[in-house]
């Protein structure tokens, strides 16, 4: 059904958006966009947070309906009343926000709604075999029977990708598929994409990792404030072109702030070990020691599963370490609760914003003030004036594109939701901030802003630890780069390290960008 590849020339337009507009109330997410998808090629959509990329992709895959405009499939206008209908026409989508059922296993997630039936029920063995094949193709070692909630975020993203691949669609839309993947996994995905395009599958790719996207794409389209501002073929453009059309000027991620004195030790981790949360008898963080000074910025680089998330969670009081000691400005905070750590000025910005960062039922403002609500409450009553001020400040400082503090969280674009999580923790005025993949899903301009903000705070004495899976981000504001591998520190560099050195220390095959 979905695989009926009508013979056609590579590069001809298979699916097109014509003058598509979409408004949510008085927010105009898309203002008459034309967009072409080319057969057997990759088209990448670039744009800032909130530019309308996800909205356009949801329209092309039948998830939402446009306010006006039309969709043209194989030269004929068409309407999709649901994503199932779009899937029947061979269009599938990997959503930016994961859409897996955490309580079900990998196999059942991949075949959800499309179970392989036999006369007597579901052919689980065949489903499992196909799941295994998909995992082999993606070079991931994930057991089809693991529950999705037991997987790390990056692995969940792999499952999401596998599910889209299993449909055998002829048009595959990938909305930030790599935001939680490390470089080597991205390489594998690119191999899969090349394989697919050679079979005539058309791909739409969205990513805020611009260099990465440039490696794979054939066409580049830039969207800005709901309108298409530029189109070019890959061979005619470079990184600078994209950045210029996306944000209007060239951004760089900054350099380590130097004109301030690095103070005394703010956070010290001694011999910290964290057992594997799923109960296997090894340590995900293994006897690790690290200290960070006031005003210092430390970047932790590592592959998926290197133990970065567990390290930060153990320090911030979410996981309990099996041994070791965490000291915050001379005060022992090992085993303290998250609330106590926050009160003492040690905060964590979690990796998975949907699960750990945001309360979907509350407004943007209430999410932003959540971690500080105790501090602005006198005796019994919360001061609304102080709260409004705090929210206004946060929206301005982290540049959240939102219809004010009263907007629903779900109405924000992915990157702006991420900024809410960062803004919430910065609003508590911490002394040490741990950020787990803070740049996940935010555009290059916003990334630069966040880094600039962190650098400024560092000048005023904030100690910063952030993790990343993108080497480029290590070589920005960090004074020190720590590479983690299998729960231990495998190397430490200054800001003058090279990408190759860092990647080699992480145990990853060096890919040349």
């Amino acid at each position: 059904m979905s695989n009926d590849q009508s013979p056609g020339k590579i590069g001809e337009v298979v699916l097109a958006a014509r003058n598509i507009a979409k408004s949510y109330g008085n927010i105009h997410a898309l203002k008459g966009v034309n967009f072409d998808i080319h057969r057997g090629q990759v088209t990448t959509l670039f744009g800032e947070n909130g530019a309308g990329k996800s909205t356009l992709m949801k329209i092309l895959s039948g998830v939402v309906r446009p306010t006006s405009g039309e969709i043209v499939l194989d030269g004929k206008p068409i309407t999709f009343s649901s994503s199932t209908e779009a899937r029947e026409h061979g269009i599938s989508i990997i959503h930016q926000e994961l859409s897996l059922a955490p309580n079900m296993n990998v196999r059942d997630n991949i075949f959800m709604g499309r179970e392989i039936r036999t006369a007597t029920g579901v052919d689980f063995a065949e489903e499992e075999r196909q799941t295994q094949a998909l995992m082999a193709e993606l070079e991931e070692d994930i057991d089809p029977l693991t529950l999705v909630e037991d997987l790390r975020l990056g692995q969940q993203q792999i499952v999401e990708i596998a599910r889209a691949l299993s449909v055998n669609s002829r048009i595959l839309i990938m909305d930030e598929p790599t935001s939680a993947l490390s470089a080597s996994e991205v390489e594998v995905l690119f191999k899969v994409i090349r394989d697919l395009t050679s079979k005539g599958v058309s791909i739409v790719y969205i990513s805020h990792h611009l260099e990465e996207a440039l490696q794979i794409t054939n066409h580049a389209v830039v969207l800005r404030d709901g309108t298409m501002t530029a189109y070019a073929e890959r061979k005619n453009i470079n990184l600078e072109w994209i950045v210029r059309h996306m944000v209007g000027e060239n951004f760089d991620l900054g350099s380590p702030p130097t004109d301030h004195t690095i103070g005394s030790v703010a956070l010290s981790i001694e011999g910290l070990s964290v057992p594997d949360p799923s109960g296997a008898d090894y340590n995900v963080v293994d006897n690790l020691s690290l200290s960070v000074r006031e005003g210092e910025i430390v970047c932790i680089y590592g592959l998926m599963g290197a133990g970065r998330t567990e390290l930060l969670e153990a320090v911030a009081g979410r996981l309990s370490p099996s041994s070791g000691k965490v000291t915050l400005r001379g005060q022992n905070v090992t085993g303290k609760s998250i609330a106590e750590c926050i009160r003492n000025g040690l905060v964590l910005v979690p990796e998975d914003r949907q699960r750990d960062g945001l309360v979907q039922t509350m407004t943007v403002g209430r999410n932003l003030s959540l971690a500080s609500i105790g501090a602005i409450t006198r005796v019994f009553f919360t001061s609304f004036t102080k709260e409004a001020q705090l929210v206004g400040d946060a929206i301005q400082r982290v540049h959240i594109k939102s219809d004010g503090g009263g907007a629903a969280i779900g109405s924000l674009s992915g990157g702006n939701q991420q900024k809410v999580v960062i803004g919430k923790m910065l609003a508590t005025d911490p002394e040490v901030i741990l950020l787990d993949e803070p740049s996940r899903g935010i555009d290059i301009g916003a990334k630069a802003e966040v880094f600039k903000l962190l650098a400024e705070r560092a000048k005023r004495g904030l100690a910063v630890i952030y993790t990343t899976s993108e080497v480029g981000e290590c070589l920005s504001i960090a004074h020190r780069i720590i590479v983690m591998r299998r729960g231990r520190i495998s190397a430490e560099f200054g800001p003058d390290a090279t990408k190759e050195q860092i990647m080699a220390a992480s145990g990853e095959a060096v890919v040349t960008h």
Partner: protein
Amino acid sequence: MSVTTSVETSKPNAKGKRKKSLVELLFEGRAFFALIAIVIVFSSMSPNYFTINNFLIMSSHVAIFGLLAIGMLLVILNGGIDLSVGSTLGLAGVVAGFLMQGVTLPQFGVILYPPVWVVVVLTCLLGAVVGAVNGVLIAYLRVPAFVATLGVLYVARGIALLMTNGLTYNNLGGRPELGNTGFDWLGFNRLAGLPIGVLVLAVFAIACGILLSRTAFGRWLYSSGGNEHAAELSGVPVKRVKIIVYMLSGVCAAVAGLVLSSQLTSAGPTAGTTYELTAIAAVVIGGAALTGGRGTVIGTLLGAFVIGFLSDGLVIIGVSAYWQTVFTGAVIVMAVLLNSIKYGRRW
């Protein structure tokens, strides 16, 4: 067919906008309009319905469900459920009745007759203890709320039956020479023309409204009901919040038990059976989401009034008890249907 994919008008003119907001207004206030509709319909069917006296009587019935529903609202906002409130109500009534009969201390050979205020305080404490049991089971021992409170439902009812041997305490009036009169004040007296039970409900509702909207605790409650992980990582003491929430629900149930047994001047061990379901229904009709994080006190009160005024109205116009059950059920399903339209909307 050029513009085939439009679902909304592409150029919303002023008129269209106003119309939409009217629809939305009707939708937001659906419990309120349902209440008005109920009053209009029954008033036209019976001359006895639309009288001040009837409204006061109906309101003092609503007070019982309303108190339970306010406690239930807190629990549901927190993402839980409390099935034990009906039994707690019954147990509270029985304990109050027991205390009013006098406590015999055989060692000393005396019978103590605690004054009414002591009875009230002890009964409320009992409610808090039952709630704390629920809370600890759920927050620390990780028993699912449904199961934990279902268990407590049975245990509390069983204790009430054991204490009375299945019988009912009558004569809760107390005796002047023992200094313990005044128990019927709660159920019978009026202040400024309003039944005390209704005033108690009003006080609880206002306190709860302030708690939810003006305090940090309220914010903690909404956030841990909306996303417990995120709340915890933002420093919300989610476990403590949970326990307090169940304790408050227990206290609300105990107060409802006091008001009810005072209204009846008797306390039976089976009082309040299935009231937990009515309380849940009131919360749901009031627009709260059973998944947690969404709901208001005003909505819940309206929900309680809708149920109370509907069932009393059906009695007044002489509909059979069986049909009453059917109607109540239909109203609940309607309400949930509208809620799912509201919260399920994606675009």
